[in-house]
Structure formats: C-alpha cells, structure tokens
C-alpha cells in the first residue's frame, strides 16, 4: 500500500518535470507530426494500390487492417524508438548530477520504488503519445460507411503491443540512465541500444536461417510486434516483452544498489 503510494508520488513528480520543461511538448509535437505523417503514407499507399488493382480488374487482397492499421502502429513503434531516449535520459542521471538522488536515497522509500516511479512516469507520458497517435486511426471509422468500418480488435492488441514495446524501451532507458550522471551519454547509449535491437530483426534477411540468426531475430524487440498489430495475442510475445521490462528494471535497481557500495 505504501509502496503504491510512494510510486504514485514519484510518478506525479516525473510528470510535473516533463510538463514543466519543454521535453514533454517537444516529444509530443514531434511524435504527433511523425505519427500523422506515417498514417498519411500508409493510407495513401493503400488507396493507390487498391485503386490500381481495381483498374486492372483484380481483387486487392490486403485489407485496410493489414495495410493501414498494422502499418501505422508499427511505424509508431519506430518513432517511439527515437522518442524514448529523450524521455528516459534524464530520469536518474539528472538526479545524480543535481545531488537530489541523495534526497530520494535517504527518504524512507526503496530503490525499487524509485525505479518503478521513474518507469511509470515515463510510461504515462508514452501512454499519452499512443493515444494521440491512435487519434489518426479514428478517421478510418469516421469516413467508413455505417457498420462497414475496419475490424477494431487489432486496434486494442496493437495498442497493447505498442505499450509493451514502449515499456521495454523505457525499462532499458531507465537502466542506462541509472549508470551515469551524464544525460547526453544516457540518451545516446539508450538510442544505440534500441537501434541495435531493432536492426537485428533484419539479420534473418541476410543469414540463411541458422540457429544464430533465429536467436538474434528472436531478440529483436520489433519482431514480437508483428502478430500483435494484426490482432493476434501470442503469449510468447507478451512474455518476451514482460521479460525485457522486468530485466531492465531489475538491472536499474541493482545499479542503484551498487552505488551504496561505490558511491
């Protein structure tokens, strides 16, 4: 109970920091522009292709769900990859530089509560981003004939997937931020780590499907989004994301703890 309360106080504080500084506005604006742009691209692409196949008298196989919704959500994941380092870089690094970590570490709250407060604080902002990104998709229903809108279920699983993906990014970001007092270093390292975890999904394009390439592509954070954006909840994917989140937060907590020994 006190744990939940303490985490709540820390989340409040993080959100205040985000919105009292330009970070939240910069990230939200950039996100909204890019998410909108990607939606426009996917929708335009879909319209053009279906028009072309209609002209050629063929039936266009891909549905609006596969093409526009899945595409837009996946793209939002990529945009998130660029936004999250900016959101997480200062979380613990700044507390250390300012010395305020001493306030947190000597108050009657645990390291885990501090780490979780940071994590959920960033996740809350990310949640706002997802909602604003999904607002674009509402057009698909607004312009659909009555009762003939696209299947809405992939929207929910897609949102879940995007949330899990972002939470994994954030957990990694919180850990990296806990290892340094320099925000720029924290942001840059987080960005490279996330980029690498995206790029390893392209490994199986090169390598002929050996054990190593399979293992590597399993580690890719994006591969596990593929089914979720199509409306399929595979336990394997959910478990994968949850393990990344728990592992990242565990490392962050250990890193906090280790400062009591090194300082």
């Amino acid at each position, binding site marked *: 109970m006190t744990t939940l*309360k303490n985490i709540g*106080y820390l989340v409040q504080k993080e959100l205040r920091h985000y919105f*009292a500084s330009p970070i939240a506005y910069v990230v939200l604006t950039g996100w909204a522009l890019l998410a909108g742009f990607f939606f426009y691209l996917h929708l335009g692409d879909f319209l053009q292709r279906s028009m072309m196949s209609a002209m050629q008298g063929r039936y266009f196989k891909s549905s609006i769900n596969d093409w526009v919704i899945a595409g837009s959500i996946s793209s939002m994941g990529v945009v998130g990859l660029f936004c999250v380092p900016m959101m997480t870089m200062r979380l613990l690094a700044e507390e250390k530089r300012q010395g305020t970590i*001493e306030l947190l570490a*000597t108050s009657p*709250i645990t390291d885990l509560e501090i780490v979780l407060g940071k994590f959920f604080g960033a996740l809350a902002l990310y949640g706002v981003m997802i909602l604003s990104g999904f607002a674009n998709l509402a057009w698909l229903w607004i312009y659909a004939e009555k009762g003939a809108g696209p299947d809405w279920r992939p929207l929910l699983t897609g949102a879940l997937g995007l949330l899990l993906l972002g939470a994994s990014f954030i957990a990694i970001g919180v850990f990296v931020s806990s290892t340094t007092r320099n925000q720029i270093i924290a942001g840059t390292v987080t960005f490279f780590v996330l980029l690498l975890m995206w790029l390893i999904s392209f490994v199986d394009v090169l390598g002929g499907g050996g054990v190593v390439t399979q293992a590597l592509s399993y580690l890719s954070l994006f591969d596990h989004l593929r089914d979720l954006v199509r409306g399929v909840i595979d336990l394997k994917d959910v478990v994968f994301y949850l393990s990344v989140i728990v592992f990242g937060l565990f490392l962050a907590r250990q890193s906090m703890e280790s400062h009591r*020994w090194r*300082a």
Partner: protein
Amino acid sequence: MIEVENLTKRYGRNTAVDGISFHVKKGEILGFLGPNGAGKTTTMRVLTCYLSPTEGTARVAGFDVFEQPLEVKRRIGYIPETPPLYPDMDVVTYLDFVAKIKGVAKQQRAQKIGDAVEKTRVGDVRTKLIGRLSKGYRQRVGLAAAILNNPEVLILDEPTAGLDPKQILETRELIKNLGGEHTVVLSTHILPEVSMTCGRVVIINRGKVVAEGTPDALMHRLRGTAALRIEVLGDARAVSDVLRSVPGVRAVTPKPADAGAGVFEIESESGRDVRVELARAVVQKGFGLQGLSQVGMSLEEIFLHLTTTDVAVSDKTEATQ
C-alpha cells in the same frame, strides 16, 4: 541515539573512514570536525543509509543502518553539502513532494510544511522557483525539508557553508533551538561554530577519530602541551640553545621578530610548567628577559595540532578518556 562502532568505509583501495567509533546521546548536538577529505561526509552518508559500511556497524535510534534502512530513514532528516533541490519546482511544491515521500500523513502535510516554513523563515519565497533562489534561501529550504517530518535525528553536512555572516548566525541559532528536541550531528570546518553550537566535538582526520570531548574539555586537555611565549634580548641562536637546554622543554620555535626582540614559542612536556626554570636560565646566562606568557590554545590550534601531527596525540587523547 546514534551508536557508531568500528565503522570502516573503503572505496576500492582508498579507505575513507577507518574504524571510527562514537556515540551521540538523545538531544545532544555533536560537532563533527575535520579537514576536507577527513571522512566526515562519508560517515554521515553511512548514518543516513546513503552508503553501506564496509565494516563495523552504525545504529540510529536502535536500528542498524544496514539491516533496517527504512526504519532509520524514517527517523532522520539530512542535508547533504549541497541541498538536494529540484530547481524547476517552487518551494511549496518541493516541500510537499518531500513530505509525501517521507510518509507524512495527508491530514498533517499542510501543517507540517507550514511549521517548517516558519521555523526556517522561507515564507516570503514560498511560491518562487527554487532555481531562482539565493544560496542562503536554498540552504534554508534544504533545512526545511530536513525537519519536515520532525525527525528524531538531524544530520547536517556543513549547514552554514556559503552563507553570509547574518545567515550563519541565524542558522546557528536555529540549530541550537533544534537541539534538545532533536539529536543533531553537524559537520563543519568552521571552528567557532563548534564551540558556539555543539555540546560535544568529535575531531576526525584521515578517517580516524583523533579527539573527542566538549569544546572546553578539549582545550583544557591540550593546554599542557600548549605553548609559552618568551621574549628575550640577545643573539637568537644562543638564546634558543639556552632555552632548549631547560629540562621539560620539548621544542623551541623562533617567531618572526616583528616585536624587536627575539620571540620564541616553547612547547613543554604535557602537564609540566617550565616557566620558572626558563626565566632562571635566561637570566643566569645574562640575556634580557622581556616577557614570558602562556599562550592558550584556541580551538583552531587544537584542530591544526591534531590534524597535522600524528599518532602521538591521538594515543594520548585516547588514553585520557
């Protein structure tokens, strides 16, 4: 209230605190004195559970800092050297956040914040951003945060550093008033501060306790080794030889002779008064004795003495305890 036994803290090969022990009674104000890098901050950080001890134990209000850190943290208020403030928060928002994470109940929050604001006199800046406050106000906001939950123990790391003289006086007054109700440990390298505010002093150097006692007792204890000041007319070298030959004299240091005559400072063996012998020797050898006086050691000198000379003094002070 605070019991430190054999506390050691090492960073890699570097030993910051080396087996120190001391106790602080309830309501006492303990001054923690030492040059920079002596291990004051490290000791305080162990007491506040910010660092874990390498060896030894520290207990606050009966709770071990390593075994039950949450219980200890509930009972302490702490200001590090630089107050841990968020520059983008205003004062009240900051204090409200601190009250929350310190577990002050919702119904009491407003009142406790009001009390702390009043005690530390930060009322006129309560809606200002902390980043815009002067150093003195920041220090006081830090103090307000530390006393918010009315902690049994207050740990203040150089609470007057960087303040102007008026603020220093006010802060000292405040700390004095906090004693009695709270147990206070404060570190400083400003010596008058210690004799003015603290009931007891622990002097540490290079991670070891070199002396402990009330400011008065410390001065008294070291008076035996304190210096005599003697002014003699005559050839400086010859005079100094004569002075050195007097039994009981440990050291003779010629002082810059701005007074005209040769001025020497004489350190005698502990507890031995050599004034009569000195005077006799000087006169017998035919030099002109112009003055002879006892130089009491100020706290500054005790401090310098203890922190620049080594083992001999610390052994002796331990023996007299």
